[in-house]
């Protein structure tokens, strides 16, 4: 085989770990990408028609057309691509043979579909050391296991949208596909837990992991669970004001916005000193952080805005850092790509998303003392490795391959 489980030159902590990813969802794709980032051999299995992710924006500069998605190119980088319709009988058989060669399967199938594909616990052979991770909207059990969803639906169910947006206004989802990315990262965490367990002899035989995006949001991101039983509903959206005591606020300045948060009263007092202690600071009304938070936050905003409006983000940032007041500039996406601190840390890496087309993509958010960064490889074209996987991994003779292509079981 050309990619290399046993090849001595293969690198990364997960070199040799074979992952079959059933393509289609952002969450499974992100999970697979995180595994590939550490050298796992990830085979992304699409149906015999290109995944809809292949046409999602942002698009390559050269687009349009099938395969013009820069997002897909990024999510699929360093993976192998196979086009196989696992819903046909012949395709299902091939898929099972592929799974038998794998250490990990990542998919987004509901409970009935997973069972049909042989990916739930009873269907897995007892002696197979397979970790099978399902990342779905509502999970494999419970009253909503067959409900349809997407990020918008998951943010609604997860008590996320309830906390984003104008006070009494429309609830808003997390931006972009963040909900799916978080679920994918939790899937990665579970796979890594199983890998450590297998290496450590504390996990034996098949393991099935059920990740629900709604549950990830509700258990890790929602702020209400701890307070509700004794304080009632908290975390209702409040425009540009946050959960902490005032100031926990996002306000405009001369050249953009700043986020201001003072965990301690002394930080707020230092911030007022920075402002030159305007006459109103003597008023006890502006020392009572609980009342400022609950009763008149906009009134205090209006006192800060004129001072902020005369200063740039960086001026405010420098002044506040000097006095240990946690105020931060709101950076635009473009500004971050050339931010000096992020350059110091090599936070972005260059990725080839199409021939001759390179972009900067956020790299791994941690620096390891002695784990090397695995080079990225361009993601696969549709069905790019189908033939190679049929021949090398599954041992399908050429004559049978022709039949499979003709019957559109593979592509």
């Amino acid at each position, binding site marked *: 085989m050309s990619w290399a489980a046993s090849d001595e030159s293969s690198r990364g902590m997960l070199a040799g770990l074979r992952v079959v990813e059933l393509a289609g969802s952002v969450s499974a794709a992100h999970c697979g990408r995180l595994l590939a980032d550490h050298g796992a051999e990830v085979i992304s299995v699409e149906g015999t028609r290109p995944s809809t992710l292949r046409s999602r924006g942002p698009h390559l500069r050269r687009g349009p057309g099938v395969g013009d998605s820069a997002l897909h190119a990024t999510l699929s980088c360093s993976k192998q691509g196979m086009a196989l319709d696992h819903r046909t009988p012949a395709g299902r058989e091939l898929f099972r043979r592929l799974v038998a060669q794998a250490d990990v399967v990542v998919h987004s199938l509901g409970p009935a579909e997973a069972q049909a594909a042989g990916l739930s616990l009873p269907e897995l052979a007892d002696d197979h050391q397979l970790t099978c991770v399902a990342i779905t909207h509502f999970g494999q059990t419970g009253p909503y296991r067959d409900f349809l*969803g997407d990020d918008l639906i998951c943010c609604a169910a997860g008590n996320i949208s309830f906390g984003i947006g104008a006070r009494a206004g429309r609830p808003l989802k997390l931006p972009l596909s963040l909900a799916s990315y978080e679920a994918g990262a*939790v899937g990665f965490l579970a796979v890594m837990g199983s890998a450590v367990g297998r290496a450590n002899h504390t996990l034996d035989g098949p393991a099935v992991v059920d990740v629900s995006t709604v549950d990830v949001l509700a258990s890790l991101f929602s702020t209400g669970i701890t307070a509700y039983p004794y304080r009632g509903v908290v975390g209702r959206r409040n425009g540009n004001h946050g959960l902490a005591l005032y100031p926990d606020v*996002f306000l405009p300045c001369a050249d953009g916005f700043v*986020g201001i948060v003072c965990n301690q009263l002394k930080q707020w007092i230092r911030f007022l000193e920075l402002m030159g202690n305007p006459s109103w600071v003597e008023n006890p009304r502006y020392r009572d952080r609980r009342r400022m938070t609950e009763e008149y936050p906009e009134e205090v905003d209006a006192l800060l805005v004129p001072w902020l409006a005369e200063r740039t983000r960086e001026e405010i940032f420098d002044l506040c850092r000097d006095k240990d007041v946690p105020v931060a500039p709101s950076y635009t996406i473009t500004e971050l790509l050339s931010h000096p601190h992020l350059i110091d840390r090599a936070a972005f890496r260059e990725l080839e998303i199409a021939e001759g087309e390179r972009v900067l993509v*956020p790299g791994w958010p941690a620096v390891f003392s002695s784990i090397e960064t695995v080079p990225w490889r361009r993601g696969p074209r549709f069905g790019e490795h189908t033939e190679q996987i049929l021949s090398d991994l599954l041992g399908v003779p050429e004559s049978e391959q022709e039949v499979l292509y003709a019957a559109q079981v593979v592509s």
Partner: protein
Amino acid sequence: MPLRWCREDRRGPAPEGRAGAGPLSGIRIVDLCWVYAGPVMTRMLADLGAEVIKVESSRRPDGTRLGRRPLDPVLPVPEGVNVDLECQPLNHALNRRKRSVAINLSAPEGRQILLDLVAVSDVVTDNFAAGTMNRMGLGYEELRQANPRIVAMSMSGAGQFGRLRDVPAYATSLAALSGLSSLVGEGPSLYGIMMPTYGDSNAAIRAAGSLLVALLGAVRDGQGQYIDVSEWEAGLVGLEEAFLAAQLTGSSPGPRGNTSDYACPHDNFRCRGEDEWIAISVLTDAQWGALCEVLGIAADGVVPFPAVTDRLRHRAELDDLVQSRTSARDAAELTAVLQAAGVPAFPVLSVEGQFADEHFVDREVFVQAEHPLVGAEVVPGAPFRFSTKHDTAAPPMSAAPLLGEANEYVICELLGRDRAELTRLVADGVLT
């Protein structure tokens, strides 16, 4: 099949973990993390079966132990327990399934006890400001001398090096620094702030994954590791799509509300009741037809704007139309009808709505723990369900520890010292 990636010949003897107690059973974590992001990270590792020993001290308690006392003890308070440090629900939620040892790390003997504990552990974690562990004499070099196979992780706002390494990490400042704030809003309004704790929890998930990558190297190959996690950089990963758009279109993306380029209608719509809403996501033309039928929009059987391209062009008009049909409906009832008709929909839940919904109990998103002072309480469950052929592979749930409840376990059982020594260490203020 053989575990090719496991390098069979290099695997050491099996640890004393119990089968069925989670894949990380037998792994011991010395956890110096406090407040939010760090404790969320080690909580997930505890959910995978790791033994997490929280190292804290009454001299400098975890910030989440402090504040007005919101819960009253209903059970007898053991002698020597400071109730004022034990009754915060947030602390209970972040630290369930962990143990606690109270060590005064500024005492030389306290520091030595910590290093002795490191020698019999697998992982050390902290989320102090950059450089703090070095200043405490607990930098990676010192930890490695105590245990060459140790995996040490420091998690901080901006990482251990780089010109802004001292930037503190609070949810609001992290959101601003990472670019997330620039995307939170709708139309011309930029709110920049979210109530959900995105930055901390996201960093926790990504740090936990990074830690397990290194731990695999330690368990399999005996390789120690130091990991420097930047919460700021963790916040960039999920914005991948925005970084691509900025480079390929030449301009920074801004807030998009609930809109999608591929689906319409795709929004939260007001329902009957105060602040009641339903999320409706029409991903296909067929779903649009079904929605029209349920809401009585298809007058005379004619579906307006049958193609998504037309719907996207008339988004505002369609949103008004759908809104006019949902405002008198009950969100839960309408959800049931729409899902049965094949249309993705769900009520926008508050935490109150979640507590009333069987999904969250059934799925163990909320679980009960028996706290030694406040009794039964609700804490968040694991963000995954891990099953093996034996069982559900989840370690038993236990409540957040009282400060120093594991002192005896650590000193006598793990470090093999006698009870007289334990008494002396308490009397000398080393264990406090």
